């Protein structure tokens, strides 16, 4: 699975992307996030603000964290957007 990080979430993690094998428990966005936070201090720090983490699955916003990750090849984690 390709994981991308943006803005201050990227800065806190320390890099912008990685390729990883997800553990079996990471089947939904919610369980994926719980696992991500357990990966280390920098991940816990990057994802500590629950309401401030936005997710995109294969470049589309995901507003429902109970969403399955089956068939997904790219997950992006980022803070609320400030475009325009």
């Amino acid at each position, binding site marked *: 699975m390709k994981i991308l990080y943006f*803005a201050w979430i990227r800065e806190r993690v320390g890099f912008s992307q990685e390729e990883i094998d997800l553990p079996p428990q990471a089947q939904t966005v919610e369980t994926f996030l719980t696992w991500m936070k357990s990966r280390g201090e920098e991940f816990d720090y990057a994802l500590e603000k629950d309401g401030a983490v936005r997710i*995109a699955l294969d470049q589309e916003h995901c507003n429902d964290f109970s969403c399955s990750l089956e068939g997904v090849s790219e997950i992006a984690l980022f*803070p609320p957007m*400030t475009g*325009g």
Partner: protein
Amino acid sequence: MTNDTKGPIVRIQSEDFDTAQILQQATKDNSNIGAVVTFTGLCRDEGGKLAALELEHYAGMAEAEITRIAERAFAHWPLDQLIAIHRHGKIAPGENIVLVIATSSHRQAAFEAASYLMDFLKTKAPFWKKEHLIDGTSSDWVDATDKDDEALNRWKDI
């Protein structure tokens, strides 16, 4: 800029754009356009404090998401054209950040489509602004505002 197939034109780029030239292209060879709404978003200097804005973006998704928003607008209003150009990278005060042009037979569709596209672009297009201050003391990420989220409420039936 050509638009052979009907649909929005979306461009994500680091270089500046020439609003007058794009506007001229948008209305050329079509005498049935009765209304053109142009919105340009510029970088403010925040009262002289800001040296530059740095816009990070999610390449690929930025274009895809703005296209999705623009296609919804295109399907809802009777538009001739809908153009969105968004810059990324370092942008100095006074420079262009974003351009939206909506053309239609009548003004209401053009006004509303341009406004809709901008409202969604602010909170759904994957861009993040970082401020670089003139005194060099700090550089921080711009916070998203509730006001921008609330702006979407008026479009909830669309």
